Structures are given as C-alpha cells and as structure tokens.
C-alpha cells in the first residue's frame, strides 16, 4: 500500500536526504529531491551529475544521502545510471543478486541536462533503461557562479550573458527540453514545480512505475542566481507556473495533458519583476524584451493547449 500523499503520512517517512547538507538557504533543489524521494516507497539508487546538488550534499568524508548514491562526472549521469540499472538487471537475471523493486533515479541540473549531458540523456532514453531522470532546472550554471545555459530565458542576466550597456542579458530564448525529451517517445515525461508538491509527487509515482525511461523537468529557483529573497523560493516557482512561463503538464504514452491550469494567466512581467536577474529589462530601452518574452510564453502556451486538447 503506497504512502498516501498527505502531509501527515509523508511526515512519518524518514528523510532520504538528511539535514546538514550545504545547499544555500532558499535553494529549491533539496525541496525537490525530498519531495521526489518521499513520493517513492521503494528502495532507490541515485546518480547525480556534477552540480550544486552533488557538491553541497557530499564533501568527503560526509554525505547527506541515506540512499546509495553515485557521482561520476558532469555530462554523464544518464549513462552512469544506465550502467547501474543494466548491472542490476544483469545480476538479477543471472541469479547473482535477489530481485528488489529498486527505482533508479538520476538528478542533473539544467547545465548537465539541457547542455553538456543532452547526448548521454538522449542515448539512455533511446535505449529504454528503466530510470527516472530529474532535471532540477534553475536556468543557469549556478554551481560555478551563474553562467548562462540552454535553459536560461531571454534577457536574463548571468555572468556570461551580463546585462551590459550594449547587450542587455541573454540574447536567445531557452530551448524546450521537455518537448525534446517527449519526442523520444518514452512512456512518461512531465514538467513540474516544487510549489505544486502534490502534482510533483504524483508525477514522480507515475514516472517510476511507467515501465521505461521517464523524465521530469522541475523548475528550481535559485535565489543567488535569480536574485530574490530566500523565503520567496516557492512563491517564485508558483508565479512561473501561474504566468504560464512554466506550465505543469505530462506526456503519458504520447498523450499530452495539462495537470494544472491557472485560473487567471498572469502576465510574465509579474514573475520577472520579482527577480534581480531581469531588473534591467524594466528600463525603457529594454521593455521590448519583456514583450518578446511574453509573446514567446503565449506562443508556447497556445501550442501546449493545442497539444493537450484544451482548444
């Protein structure tokens, strides 16, 4: 009987990521990890790409992980977990170890997933390994000091796309990785946010029980990179959802479905203005970038509604 997704029941489960890790106050990543691991009742084995989560949860001789955990390198977490999962299947099939319903989970940031790890991810998805890949997406290389990634939105200030006097932040739109992963036709793909914890946990359960590769793209605010107060973390991921900048949806066996529809779709400006990384966009000469970003959000939202049969 699976643990009910209600706080009273979930609070009884021991934490699989212990307190005392070194992630920043206000970081969404450990919230996401806890929600995902709490959603799973079965044993798990975790692989972690190089990034904030990896460096801040393990500094030898310490570890915050109460589950088996492996870090290999930055761009290869999908290949690493593929090796672990294959070894498990091989050893079980040969009768060398007993069968357990182990769930294999890979965590990578947007740098390790959208950019440098995309090839390994694509390969592992295509080969059909039974694992859940979680991208905790804070929209830049936060671990190394806020450099732009393929997930960084248009106009955002990062240390490699600085808001200068001539070039006002990142010049390109972010790529739609969730759709790219969905194009692999794997059994389960979803977008989620930690502010909608129940939605994320339900998606996690579907993902680890889908019988094949699964992918979750989870928006993970970083107060250092996004420039907001530490207590605003979940509020800001929710604003991203309510502006339809970060829609919550799933693609289950090829069927697209919206899992949350804001009652009122807020202008993206409501999300932008709360973050220091977009401050320069509110100068008169840069307002057009907000309009461009809004147009892009609208275009992608309309496309998503169509894919989800909402219009």
């Amino acid at each position: 009987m699976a643990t009910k997704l209600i706080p009273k029941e979930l609070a009884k489960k021991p934490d699989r990521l212990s307190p005392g890790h070194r992630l920043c106050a206000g970081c969404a990543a450990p919230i996401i990890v806890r929600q995902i691991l709490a959603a799973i009742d079965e044993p798990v084995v975790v692989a972690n790409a190089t990034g904030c989560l990896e460096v801040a949860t393990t500094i030898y001789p310490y570890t915050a992980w109460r589950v088996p955990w492996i870090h290999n390198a930055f761009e290869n977490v999908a290949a690493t977990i593929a090796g672990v999962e294959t070894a498990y299947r091989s050893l079980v099939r040969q009768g060398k170890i007993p069968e357990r319903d182990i769930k294999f989970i890979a965590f990578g940031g947007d740098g390790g997933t959208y950019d440098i790890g995309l090839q390994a991810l694509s390969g592992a998805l295509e080969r059909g390994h039974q694992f859940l890949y979680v991208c905790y997406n804070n929209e830049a290389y936060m671990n190394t000091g806020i450099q732009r990634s393929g997930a960084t939105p248009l106009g955002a200030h990062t240390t490699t796309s600085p808001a200068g006097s001539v070039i006002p932040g990142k010049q390109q739109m972010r790529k739609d990785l969730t759709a790219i992963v969905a194009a692999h036709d794997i059994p389960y793909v979803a977008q989620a946010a930690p502010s909608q914890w129940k939605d994320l946990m339900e998606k996690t359960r579907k993902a680890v029980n889908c019988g094949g590769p699964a992918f979750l793209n989870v928006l993970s605010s970083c107060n250092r990179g996004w420039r907001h107060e530490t207590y605003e973390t979940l509020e800001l991921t929710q604003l991203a959802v309510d502006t339809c900048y970060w829609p919550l949806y799933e693609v289950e066996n090829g069927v697209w479905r919206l899992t949350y529809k804001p009652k009122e779709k807020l202008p993206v400006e409501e999300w932008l203005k709360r973050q220091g990384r977009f401050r320069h966009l509110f100068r008169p000469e840069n307002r057009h970038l907000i309009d461009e970003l809004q147009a892009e959000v609208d275009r992608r939202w309309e496309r998503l509604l169509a894919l989800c049969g909402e219009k």
Partner: protein
Amino acid sequence: MSKYEALTGDQAVATAMRQINPDVVAAYPITPQTETVEFFAEYVANGEVTTDFICVESEHSAMSACVGASAAGARVMTATSANGLALMWEVVYIAASLRCPIVMSLVNRALSGPINIHCDHSDVMGMRDSGWIILFSENGQEAYDNIIQAVRIAEHPDVLLPVAVCQDGFITSHAMERVEVYDDADVKAFVGTYRPKWSILDVDNPKTYGPLDFYDYYYEHKRQQVEAMEHARRVILEVADEFNRKFRRNYGLFEAYRLDDADVAVVVTNSTAGTAKVVVDGLRAQGLKVGLLKPRVFRPFPAKELAQALRHLKAVAVMDRSIAFGSMNNAGPLFLELTAALAIHGVHIPVADYIFGLGGRDIKPSEVESVYRDMLRVAETGRVERLVTYLSVRE
C-alpha cells in the same frame, strides 16, 4: 582441451570475452576495434553469453556506463581505439580513482589529427598516467591471454584498478593467426566469480560513491591509487604464474628474446616485437650478438627489472610508435621512461630512440635491421650519434 583456431586479434579478444562472460559490456564501435564489438554482440544475440550489452551512443557514455555498472558490483568490460579512448578521457581517470576493475581491450590506433585509422601508440600513451594498468600484446594469442589475466589482476582486492590490454590496430587486430583457445570451463575456472566487497545496489547499506573530495582528502586518495598500483606489481606476476602453469605459457613483466648473451638490443612493444624477433634470428645467424626486450607490462612500469635486464648490454635502441611532442629531443614516451629507469638504477649504457610506424606506416624487417646495425656501431664506438631518429620518414 584447448584447440587451435584461426582468429583475428579482435576475434581473439571477443573469444576471451565470451569465455569470461562479463555481466555488463558497454561499448561503442570504432575502427579497428569494431570487430570485437560485433562478434560480442553476436554472442549476446545468440545467447552464448549472459552478458547485458549496452550499445551506447558514444565512448564517453561507454566508460560512464562501465563505471556505473562496476560500482553496482558487475564484472564489466569494454573495448575502444584512438579517438574513442580520447573521448572517454575524463571518465578513464574517474574509473581508476573510483577503483573500478574494468577491463578494456584497446586496439591501438593513431590519434587524430590528421585523421588516420591505422596503428600507432599515440592513443595508449596519452592514458599512461591515468591510473590504469596497461599491458601490451604482440599478437592475437597474447591479446587473448592478457584479457583473461586482466580480469584477475583488476579484481584482486589489493588492486581494484582498471586494466587496458593493447594490441596493434589492423596489424594484429585484423590479421588472422593461429590462436590456442583454451577450454571454456578452464577459462571460467581461471577468472572465477567476481565477489565485490561493495555494491551500490546494496540498498540496505547505502554508500556514497564519488563524493566531492577537497584538499583535506583528495591527496590521500591519490596516494591510495599509488598503493594499488604498487600491489599490482606483485599481483600481475602472481596471476601470470598461475596462468603460465595452467595454460603452459611464459608471461612475466616483459619477454627477453635472445637477450642473455646479447651485446645490443632493441626494446619494442606489440607486433613490431614479432618483426624484431625475425631480424634477431637473421642477425644471430650471421654471428651477431643481438637480442630483444619486449615490454608486456607498461603500467606499473617495471623500471628496476628492465634496468636489470638491460644492464649487460653495450647499446640499446628503443623503438617508439608515438612521439612525446616537446619532450626531451622530441623522443617517444617509452624511451623517456626507460632512459630514466636506466639512469636511476645506475645503468650507463648508450641508448637511442627510434620513432617509427606512425599512422600505420609499415615497418619492414630491413628497417629494424638498420636499427640493430646502428646499435652494433654504437656498441663499438660507445657513442650515440643521434639520440632520436625518425625511422624512414621523408624529410
């Protein structure tokens, strides 16, 4: 009962892999290693092995998956060449530092650029300081034998290091030779069952693998790798000893061919040693006292033993199938290391380096003979006129 088969070097390796029957193989095809992967894929497809074969999308992922599978307690193998190894690079080091006993067949091929698919040793020489044990093989038989021994060396509890087994691309990987293939059961008995002490699949006893490791411990972990490499010196010989007795072979750290009473010798690895043996026999027939030293174990480098074996000579030529660009006199890696070993161990004899065979350039017996004749002159004069010679290059 063993039997003799006509096998290419790649096929000999694949045969060893079939008999070893590893739990996981993760590999990506690259010339001239491809045949091994193809043969092995057939064994998997026909149920001749119980291995799970991960046909990855790149060599980087091949080595990454090998590390994951090895951490899970599986017996793991892979195969690659040249640029494939270069793409693995980052994870090659990680595999050694995570103490993953992975066995790799490395079919030596020239590294790009310019792009070239033929043999030289620029690929393996790049990994020489990566923490892997490295064995050389003269022919398909040795590649086969070394692969079998590599499993035992890698998995020894005092070692737990990955092993690369080299052979020459095309020259032996694609040449069909007579190979003594041992009985499946004998090979299985020899390699035994891998019993890892730890596994990431032990969910009841969770362990953290590959944590961040800073200035307060990283250094000690590197030191432990040195310890493991030192243990490997003993273990390689123990495994060879058992192998030799069981399969009637004569493996050690190196092969000395007509070396004992020689005045001059050539030191050369892999297939060219075979060519050199023919030359040695020819020159011996003319009454010339020449010999050969063929290193088998390159990592850990048997400096003392090599110095001892060469101590009595009047002149030594090293033949290097790669260049250490910008090093002393732009010599080859084997020369640099061997001359250091001779100096440290008080062996002061004339030594010269001959770079040869880059990008698969054919090496003829007449060229090897010219090296011996040079050395015979050096033995007389006691003087090396040219420290590094690029053999038969158009200048």
